[in-house]
């Protein structure tokens, strides 16, 4: 059976192969985005999992879209923001955890990397999302606002305050 946009669906109608071709192939990018905002592998995995699940449920409409990657990005960012809000409302992470030096990732960290991780951990969820989307992924402020579900002025504020926090923590005057 030939589906729209040349995607192939399975015999029972579930969009397995088409879904895999579009959504699952984008997992690495989504996971990096989620990890940049959440700064926690487990939470990032859950956020991406929720994004994939939502995409699968909405696949009928998502498969018709032109900018499926943008849709996935927005859903993933929203999950990350709402997830961090939920965790913070439950007192997580507790303050002492932010000051603890966790085990270094594969390959280890240099001193600057450790300082950067600690400084990055002091940013808010919105500040991280704004910096990640604008600085790393190159989205404009207006595009960041659309992805984050807020006004462009709010994105600017988060950007400025987030970077100011990083400079202060890193003593980069």
């Amino acid at each position, binding site marked *: 059976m030939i589906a729209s946009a040349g995607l192939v669906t399975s015999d029972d109608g579930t969009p397995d192969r088409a879904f895999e071709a579009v959504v699952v192939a984008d997992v690495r990018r989504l996971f990096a985005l989620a990890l940049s905002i959440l700064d926690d592998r487990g939470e990032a995995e859950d956020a991406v999992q929720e994004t994939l699940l939502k995409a699968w449920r909405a696949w009928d409409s998502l498969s018709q879209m032109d900018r499926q990657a943008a849709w996935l990005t927005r859903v993933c960012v929203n999950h990350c923001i709402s997830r961090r809000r939920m965790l913070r409302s439950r007192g997580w992470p507790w303050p002492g955890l932010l000051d603890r030096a966790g085990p270094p990732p594969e390959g280890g960290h240099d001193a*600057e990397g450790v300082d950067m991780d600690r400084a990055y951990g002091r940013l808010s969820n919105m500040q991280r999302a704004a910096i990640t989307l604008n600085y790393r992924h190159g989205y404009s402020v207006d595009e960041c606002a659309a992805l984050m579900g807020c006004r462009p002025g709010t994105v600017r504020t988060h950007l400025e305050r987030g970077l100011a926090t990083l400079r202060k923590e890193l003593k980069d005057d």
Partner: protein
Amino acid sequence: MIDIGPRLDSELRAKFDRVEAENPPQRLMTFQPTATRGHRSLNAIVGLAAIAVVAAGIAVFALELSGHPRPAPTPSSAQGAPLPSMPVYSPSPPLPQVIAPVPMPVYGTGFPASWHIVIPVTKHTGSAVLPAFVPAGWVYVQYACFGTGHLHIVSTDGTLSESFRSCSSSAHPVDAQISGAYGPLSGSPVVLKVVTSPSVRWEIVLAETATPSTLPALPALPANAKVLVPVTYGLGVAALPSFAYRSFIHIQWWCSGPGGITVFVSNGHQSMGASDCGSDGVGGTVNYAGPRETLVVDVNPDNRWEIRVYWQPGDPTNNPSG
């Protein structure tokens, strides 16, 4: 994109490079929406089941409510109708029967058939005076009590005063010798009074025997033995009759019950004892030399004992001091 400065730019770039270098978990790379969906479906099923349970509970509660008679509308006093009757409460349930039925056993065996019941089983709550009787031997009491307090048995003439251990909620028969520590009661009528808290329920039965057969016979006396204290039976602490002798004495003893037994002379020196009488009892004969006038048996209140004291003319010192 905003300008953030060279150093922060460098460090932030390195930070994101590290983040993007991390591989996603394999679970995401092999995402199986059906499996996840099934998990969600299971949650939904569990949720629906919980809702069904709650709904069933509400339905049962509604049925229970509908089963109760609805109160009639309260008539107004202006109409002169009778007031609704007050609810009738059922009497409080009887107290559990915790006291053993008649006859109460003596250590599980009951009074020996040869014993004479002087006070039949009497049940009461609080203090009471028992019927008078004329004792003709060793008088024993069996009792059980329930409540906060303890039983205290006194004779109206003041010659007898025995306190028993505290009652409990798991009352069981206890027997005790109340005929005095060193001899049978006989002759004069005895009126006993049970003194206890007003709320204590109790039952009691008294019997007497010419020879306390529940205790084992002490070893036979040597042929030339001179008895200073005849066989004396007791329960708990007691003082033996005084005697005067300045020599070597022999104390035959036997005890039964929790804890040990110790016999002191009147000057406080310990003369003999056993660390644990035990439920099966233990006994022996000990010797003691030195001045003495009185022996005091120090024993657990629940211990039963018997003692006999004698001397022999062939002892190292055998000059009675009179």
